[in-house]
């Protein structure tokens, strides 16, 4: 070690800055096993799911588009999207976001990076951008692989939308892409939440598990009531905004509300995280932020917010009324009747069907029927060509988000499977169908 470094003229490039931090963080993410595992899961998972589902005789009918997984490949990415929106995207996003700051504490490397040519601001924004990039890549990967898996394993048959209309392959593909694009917005908001957890707790476990736990808590909260106000404020509701693309006519209002909620959450989380990071004293590695008093304060705040939201959900008036249910079920039925006739080789016009629905909750003896529940029933009086006048009864289960499943009587609407004009077998769209009412 006798040579002297300073003898050599230093070749310098433009140093530091957000760009340099971003490049370094991406290089680190690529080198770590957990982000790699998550990427592999996104690459392999959808294919495994599609292949497994295709070998089963039953279908995951309790999820939106689940009953179509044997008939249209475009239903596979939408089922995956439905599952991922519950806790998958928050967890996948926080794999990097929840660890990206806390890992520097775990490895005691803050003093290494903070003594280079980059400011705390550079480090904060570089790391944030890297975490957001990873989240975007994860959502994009899942969109691409699940779509390819659906097309390869199941096929490109048209998809039945949430209002009973048939979506051709091209439009279905576009809707799938747009739906994942919409899911990216709350995923990025959960990324910002993960960064907040990572900065403030300085603990990777809390950073990675915090956002999905918050997400699950929001899902549970959203099941407690079917009001609009509190539900709209929950990040997880934004994961359902893509439903608006699959109804006829398209409804983008939930997307607009979701964008505002996600943007506000992201700004608040990043601002709090940035302030905490900037004023932090890196005075020693023994100063553990996880003191019992802080933990107790954090728990109290969390319980307080949850209690407020629970009360809010309970007091929030439901928007699910018998009129809205009748409107959605009747149009859905009429559109599906056209699809059903088309499958059997007959061409009819939806306007040639006259549908008169009457929907109510069985548990309501007097007064208007409102709210989510599995005790809805709809009597649908139909008049139309070749069928004359019939009455079809459906048992309807309505979930708090406005999506529902209607199950009818085989005697009147045909068996589960229909024989098509060319001799094949398809699912009878009227046997049981899903739909969504979009909140005002």
């Amino acid at each position, binding site marked *: 070690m006798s040579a002297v*470094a300073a003898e050599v003229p230093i070749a*310098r490039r433009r140093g530091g800055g957000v760009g340099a931090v971003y490049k370094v963080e991406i290089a680190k993410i690529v080198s770590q096993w957990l982000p790699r595992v998550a990427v592999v899961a996104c690459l392999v998972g959808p294919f495994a799911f599609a292949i497994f589902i295709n070998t089963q005789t039953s279908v995951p009918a309790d999820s939106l588009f689940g009953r179509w997984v044997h008939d249209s490949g475009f239903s596979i990415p939408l089922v995956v999207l439905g599952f991922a929106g519950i806790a998958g995207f928050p967890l996948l996003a926080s794999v990097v976001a929840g660890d990206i700051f806390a890992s520097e504490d775990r490895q005691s490397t803050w003093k290494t990076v903070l003594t280079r040519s980059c400011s705390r601001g550079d480090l904060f924004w570089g790391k944030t951008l890297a975490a957001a990039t990873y989240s975007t890549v994860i959502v994009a990967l899942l969109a691409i692989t699940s779509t390819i898996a659906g097309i390869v394993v199941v096929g490109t048959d048209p998809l039945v939308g949430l209002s009973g209309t048939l979506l051709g392959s091209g439009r279905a593909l576009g809707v799938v892409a747009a739906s994942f694009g919409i899911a990216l917005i709350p995923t990025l908001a959960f990324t910002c939440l993960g960064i907040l957890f990572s900065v403030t707790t300085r603990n990777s476990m809390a950073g990675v598990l915090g956002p999905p736990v918050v997400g699950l808590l929001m899902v549970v909260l959203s099941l407690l009531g079917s009001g609009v106000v509190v539900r709209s404020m929950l990040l997880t509701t934004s994961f359902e905004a893509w439903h608006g693309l699959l109804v006829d006519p398209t409804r983008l209002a939930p997307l607009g509300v979701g964008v505002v909620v996600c943007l506000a959450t992201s700004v608040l989380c990043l601002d709090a995280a940035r302030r905490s990071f900037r004023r932090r004293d890196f005075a020693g590695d023994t100063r553990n932020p996880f003191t019992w008093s802080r933990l107790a304060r954090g728990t109290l705040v969390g319980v307080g917010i949850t209690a407020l939201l629970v009360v809010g959900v309970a007091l929030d008036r439901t928007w699910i009324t018998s009129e809205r249910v009748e409107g959605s079920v009747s149009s859905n039925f009429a559109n599906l009747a056209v699809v059903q006739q088309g499958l059997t080789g007959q061409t009819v016009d939806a306007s040639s069907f006259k549908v008169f629905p009457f929907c109510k909750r069985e548990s309501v003896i007097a007064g208007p029927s409102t709210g989510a529940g599995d005790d809805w029933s709809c009597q649908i009086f139909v008049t139309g060509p070749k069928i004359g006048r019939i009455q079809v009864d459906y048992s309807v289960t309505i979930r708090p988000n406005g999506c529902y499943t209607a199950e009818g009587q085989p005697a009147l609407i045909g068996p589960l499977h229909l024989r098509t004009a060319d001799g094949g077998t398809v699912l009878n769209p009227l046997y049981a169908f899903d739909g969504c009412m979009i909140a005002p």
Partner: protein
Amino acid sequence: MSDADAAVEVRGLVKTFGDVTALDAFDMRIRAGEVHGLVGPNGAGKTTLLRMLFGLAAPDAGTITLRGREWRPDDETTPPGVSGFVEDPRFYPYLSARRNLELLAELDGVDPVRIEEALELVRLTDRADRKVGGFSSGMRQRLGLAASILRAPRLLLLDEPTVGLDPTGLREVQSLLTGLAADGVTVLISSHNMPELDGVCDSVTVMKDGGSVWEGSMDRLRSESPAPAHRLFTSDDDRAVEIARAESRVTVVADPDGGLTVHADRDILDGYVLVLGRSGVAVRRLELRMTALESMYFALTGAESDRTATDARPDEIGATT
């Protein structure tokens, strides 16, 4: 010395953590181009001071001027030309040494061509592709030095840079630092081991309880240091003490761990040992207990010497029996 000559100037620095005062109106000045030692017992405030020099922690009061630029609380970046490490250097364990340096070079905007040179300087070239997670403490110290050199420092701040190094590594690091200083790089080395700084540092600051208790050149420290301490085992300790009373330049006291502690300069000690022999007192063992600098260090800091028999170095003075 004018302010312009100072590479580091610290005035009235205060830092408290709750009830604990880590730095208490601390002052220090380091001239450009010299190697300065910062010594003190554990808890004296050395690492806290280095953290504040790097901007990792904000002072409660006082001023810090590095290479003529005063540090302000809103400064977010380590000043250009300032490099080093605090406590043991840490890197990403899942990356190789070379990859770690590549990433740090990216953060600094340094041309990656410097990496090989830095690795060669710290003798890590042959292990550069191993993951840092498997590195020993000494290898991490070497990598820490490489990372510091990568920034082409004009002011190098090093916290205990020789911890974990074997004797060869220690000499190599000392040689590297003196080489850098010869090229005008100012070096600040924090240590709690005074002998390690001897022969490397031009000047030294001794810290105790968050304050500076002595600051000046190594030459002055040596000249002001008390005589080194030796431990002496004889056939007749009482007679040895009695003989020492006749020689004012020798202080002999009974050592609580057995034997005697003798404070005397080397030539005086030689004479005392000869007198003991002539007086019929056999010298069974004589070992260096504390160098002059260590004696000064313990006198200044009030720290107790915890040197044990196994730490003693009889070979340095030629023990006799």
